């Protein structure tokens, strides 16, 4: 077997392995971000790295580029073992990264940006002509014609991205990492970027391409490595991997395994509480319809970036809809801010607990009463006794594990923080609660408790919008599921149709 490989390698030197990461482990405190992940790249290939949020993609890249040191594991690059300790060291070894947010200096010229930090000098003076020549060479390699003296800020985002790539080329990179390079580009620009990627591949560059757009992966990549929950799922040849299989690899469970999981029996549906027709926002979410009845749990399924969270944020007034209309309990409703949403009986628990949920330094009690106090206004302060009673009630009802109601919420575990945030909304007794990934990053026990809570809320007649990338969880919890793909709603499944296999099919566009 090995001899065959070496023969193949000898015959096709292009296909030599340039990067081998073996059994990489990395933990933050007790959370395993990477648990035995491997990644192999060959010269002259475009390799896609895929996985949902929290799969470990960015941690893996940070290990490779020297931002993090792995706890365990081996990195071999170009036949030598390396352990980069900083992005600079990685760059010196031949590993260059182009980040999603372009970190260049917009006020400087293109040439300056390409050579930033390694400008050719003589006796401490910049050698302008040399710089120009080198910058032009790097740009030329991409097949571009640009005036390198132009200031970067005056160029389009796509061109700035190209300049970032040219900068990587100038350091003689052998491996180029593109971290979600297409998320802010339009279709034509994406095509242009792909042309450049193919051109570099032909020159023998190894490209690691991180994205969550399925179409792009199939359009440009040769092989795919899939991660899930910090674990290595597999390495596949793109041409031999059906979409459905890729999705099931990313979301967990194989297609066959999940076929038989059943949706909850349809319960007594109340009156329609919220009816949105054609709501959307350019560049964020294509116009879609959605209805939710009291006592109903509606799921939103789709991959990362498909518009799940955006839907909830539009309904909650965080993002403003630029089309369509919303009716609540039959009456037209204009919701243009979270405050108005709260006043209309809506609640929204964000997927980003840390930056959009908790007030880290305030106590559990203060975090619990915040939404209720906000709805009462600044003058009608809840009395000490009322505050303590509320806090004690929700700590007991939701089984929140905290040393005291006065403990800063940041000292609690993720699951308990999540429960505090749910308590914050439940205190208001909302009519519709939107839960965006309520069980992400929390332990199994807390997960089950939150699912149970959703069931009891439904029984009490609350409308629930439930967003999760865990299909089984969706199937267990929701009686109706709206499926999203590429920022559009592609369909809806009801009752017995709510099965993981059907959802996956819709996401993959096979129905």
């Amino acid at each position, binding site marked *: 077997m090995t001899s065959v490989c070496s023969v193949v390698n000898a015959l096709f030197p292009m296909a030599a392995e340039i990067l081998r990461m073996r059994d990489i482990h990395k933990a933050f405190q007790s959370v395993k971000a990477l648990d035995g992940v491997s990644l192999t790249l060959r010269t002259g290939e475009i390799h896609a790295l895929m996985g949902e949020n929290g799969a470990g993609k960015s941690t893996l890249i940070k290990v490779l580029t020297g931002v993090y040191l792995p706890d365990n594991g081996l990195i071999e690059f170009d036949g030598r073992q390396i352990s980069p300790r900083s992005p600079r060291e990685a760059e010196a070894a031949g590993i260059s990264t182009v980040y999603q947010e372009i970190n260049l200096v917009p006020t400087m010229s293109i040439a300056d940006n390409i050579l930033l930090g390694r400008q050719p000098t003589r006796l401490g003076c910049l050698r302008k002509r040399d710089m120009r020549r080198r910058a032009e060479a790097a740009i030329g390699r991409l097949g571009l014609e640009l005036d390198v003296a132009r200031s970067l800020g005056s160029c389009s985002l796509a061109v700035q991205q190209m300049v970032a790539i040219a900068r990587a080329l100038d350091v003689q990179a052998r491996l180029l990492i593109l971290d979600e390079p297409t998320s802010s580009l339009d279709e034509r620009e994406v095509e242009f970027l792909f042309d450049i990627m193919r051109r570099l591949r032909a020159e023998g560059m190894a490209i690691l391409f991180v994205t969550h757009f399925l179409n792009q992966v199939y359009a440009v990549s040769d092989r795919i490595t899939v991660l899930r929950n910090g674990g290595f799922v597999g390495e596949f040849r793109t041409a031999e991997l059906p979409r459905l299989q890729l999705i099931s690899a990313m979301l967990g469970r194989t297609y066959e395994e999940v076929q038989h999981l059943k949706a909850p029996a349809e319960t007594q549906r109340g009156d329609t509480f919220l009816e949105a027709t054609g709501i959307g926002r350019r560049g964020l979410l294509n116009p879609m319809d959605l209805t939710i009845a009291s006592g109903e749990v509606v799921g939103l399924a789709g991959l990362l970036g498909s518009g799940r969270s955006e839907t909830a944020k539009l309904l*909650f007034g*965080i993002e403003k809809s630029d089309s369509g209309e919303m009716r609540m309990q039959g009456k037209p409703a204009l919701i243009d801010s*979270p*405050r108005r949403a*709260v*006043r209309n009986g809506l609640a*929204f628990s*964000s997927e980003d607990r840390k*930056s*959009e*949920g*908790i*007030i*880290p*330094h*305030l106590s559990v009690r*203060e975090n619990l*009463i*915040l*939404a209720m*106090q*906000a*709805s*009462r*206004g*600044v*003058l*009608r*302060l*809840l009395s000490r006794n009322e505050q303590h009673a509320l806090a004690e009630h929700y700590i007991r009802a939701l089984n929140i594990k905290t040393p005291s109601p006065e403990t800063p919420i940041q000292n609690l575990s993720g699951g308990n923080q999540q429960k505090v945030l749910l308590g*914050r909304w439940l205190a208001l007794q909302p009519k519709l609660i939107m839960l965006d990934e309520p069980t992400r990053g929390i332990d199994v026990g807390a997960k089950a408790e939150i699912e149970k809570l959703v069931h009891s809320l439904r029984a009490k007649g609350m409308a629930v919008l439930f967003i999760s990338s865990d299909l089984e969880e969706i199937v267990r919890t929701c009686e109706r599921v709206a499926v999203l793909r590429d920022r559009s709603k592609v369909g809806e499944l009801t009752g017995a149709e709510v099965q993981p296999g059907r959802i996956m099919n819709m996401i993959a566009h096979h129905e």
Partner: protein
Amino acid sequence: MNNAATMRAWFSGGTLLWPLVGLGLLLAFNLMFSNNFFALKILDGRLYGTPVDVFHQGSKVMLLAMGMTLVIATGGVDLSVGSIMAITGAVAAVLVTQTQFALATILAISLAIATIAGLCNGLLVALAGIQPIVATLILMVAGRGVAMLLTGGQIITINDPAFVFLGTGQFLGLPFTITIVALVFLVTILAVRKTAAGLFLESVGDNEKAASYSGVNARFVKILAYTYSGLCAGFAGLIATANIKAADSSRVGEMMELDAIFAVVVGGTALTGGRFTVIGSIIGALLIQTLTTTMYNLGVAPAVAPVPKALVIIAVCLMQSAAFRAHIKSFFSQWRRP
């Protein structure tokens, strides 16, 4: 073991601990080296002595620091308070010397203008989204010009005894300025702790996004903080003007915004926003004033005075830094291990 636990408690003490320790050390220093620092005597029913002077002289910074605390709690900063003092003084001086209005009317108009100036800062920060340091810098620079326009570039002297009483009068045997500070302090504490304003300020300063997603009107909260800071600066401006019986637009409140920021930070409110303590800021202001008075008593030249001041401020800030305390702690535990 017991010892280590005590030490841990000591090092991770409450927010008020370190400013109090700093103030205590400074007072102890004065007890030893300054003559008669603590000597109080009663003459004609008035209390005299250096501690009284500290309160009287420190009244302006204490007033500014209270408003500044709320602004800093939201994660902002207000550089314009010194200029608002100048504007308030100029308005009051013009009204006192050129109109026949009752004193109460004059004070109300002056304070209203200070409040409006603060409101403008708040609108720039909260609605226009300008960074606080830039938004308030505008008024800091332009404010003195406005004051100059009002006074016609002159120093207007005020002889109205009722107005001058604000800065030099005696009440209950103490300088009247102390009464003003006490009243503003009382109002501030009631306003932030007996309404939800304190909770909203802290939540907006700690995590604005999360607060506004929970229904808190973050913009309104910020506007409120800057407006209140303007009002506090108005009081300080009246006192400063009454103190010297003149509206000196180019000098009044000069660099005092920095003293106020120092007082807040030394008092234990972090510049990053979130948790705040009004009483800590008062202690911080007293600490700074005690320092100034001490150096005056010791005959340190005014030009050199900022140096020891800076050293004390750095020391208190370091003691408040959890990272620094951790360093010290690990140093001590290394030292104790053998």
